[in-house]
């Protein structure tokens, strides 16, 4: 387990620990230490802090809620600005929708699509992709909406490993409408298909038209 995965797993376990136990009392902590011996020390340390947090008396410092909030605002603003900069950087043309190390099926599953559908998107064979799905794709591959939009707007491309005779012109395929493809993709679960088709009823810029306009 690499460090990041371990940290994430620990966080999940501690979330569940707090959700399922009423207090850091010995009996509860002992049970969780037995359940996850590989995180014994971390669970004990966390439970000890929980106990101390609950037992300490009223305020000893002069920090105000306003000051705490200001710190938070600074963090959120900085991250938003960094994201805007990052988005601009991420808007550099991307070369595909299957990042190195990722698998087609994992990407498709995360986005609620089928591998075949994702492959078609990767080959730029789909047009009229709803903004919500563009956002999902961007999130899934860790890119920006703008970069994905730009990529999908490009001409169809060949699949990565297509072999063809040098005397033949490769067939690139034609772009098809997103919703036609949704209707034709028999491997999409029904509830997912219904959701995707519900996006058709909306205007092309569904959420901005329906509300929450910037």
């Amino acid at each position: 387990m690499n460090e990041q995965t371990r940290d994430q797993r620990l966080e999940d376990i501690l979330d569940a620990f707090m959700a399922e136990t009423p207090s850091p009392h010995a009996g509860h902590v002992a049970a969780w230490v037995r359940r996850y011996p590989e995180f014994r020390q971390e669970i004990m340390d966390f439970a000890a802090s929980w106990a101390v947090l609950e037992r300490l008396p009223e305020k000893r410092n002069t920090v105000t809620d306003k000051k705490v909030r200001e710190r938070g605002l600074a963090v959120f603003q900085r991250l938003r600005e960094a994201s805007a900069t990052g988005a601009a950087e991420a808007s550099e043309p991307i070369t595909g929708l299957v990042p190195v190390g990722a698998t087609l099926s994992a990407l498709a599953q995360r986005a609620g699509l089928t591998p075949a559908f994702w492959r078609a998107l990767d080959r730029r064979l789909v047009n009229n992709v709803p903004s919500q799905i563009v956002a999902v794709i961007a999130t899934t591959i860790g890119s920006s909406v703008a970069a994905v939009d730009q990529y999908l707007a490009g001409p169809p491309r060949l699949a990565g490993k297509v072999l063809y005779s040098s005397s033949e012109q490769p067939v690139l395929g034609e772009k098809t409408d997103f919703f036609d493809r949704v209707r034709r993709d028999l491997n999409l679960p029904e509830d997912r298909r219904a959701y995707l088709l519900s996006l058709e009823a909306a205007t092309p810029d569904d959420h901005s038209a329906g509300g929450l306009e910037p």
Partner: protein
Amino acid sequence: MTDSSIRPLTKLNQQNEVYQRLPHVDLQIGEALALSVTQLEARVRVPKGEDGHLQEEALVYLLRHARFTSRPALEDVVASALLDRCSGYLNHWFRSLSDDDSLAASSEVWERLAMKLVASDDRGDFYQVRFWLGFQRLATTVFNETVKKINELSVERAREWDDPADELGDEAESRSASVDRAAEEDAEAFLSEKVAARLAEALAQIKEPYREAYILRFGEGWPIESTDGSGFSISDHFGRTPRTISTWLVKAREAIDKWLEEQS
């Protein structure tokens, strides 16, 4: 009825089931998505318990929606609402830290929370299901790390108590026994709200790591030494011998007695 355009969660819980938002949170999200930013600005201020209130779990969804559809104005409104609601709690939780430590720890919580809430993967899904629990867990983790840093020095200072027999000899044994008896009464006192408040005041006077050891032993019933091979004990937590922990408890109880005497 759930709005089918709301993006489902994908993260798995400990039972390998996908986290699910509560149905009324989905309803709130659906309603909020139909509002303009100006309307939403008013809506996020509706207090808890009143019609139209938006739960924090719904706000987390809206924050992500704003981020991934590049709507900075919306993102500001939602982030601001979350900060309004959470700052008081965070300030309260870090009440025992110094001004500097409290603010540094608060910044750390905000940083980690924000990173999770706008992560491109599903690591923040839990916050759309049990926001306050996740937030408290995060604050507790940061508190733990902060106190650990602060305690590094005090634990070093406490090393002089590593071998109490050398320091106190038989006297330590006899003091330890009498402290055990007095502390058993404290364990009872922890259960009484009125006495617990006074005890909490007394605990504030004790230095670390004695205080933490005392709380764990008599507040939470942790064993000094692991007897079942699980490696769960105060001794294991601090990485010190059971005898050292016993001495820390003696020190803690003596500090409490001294403070109580001064108060009376």
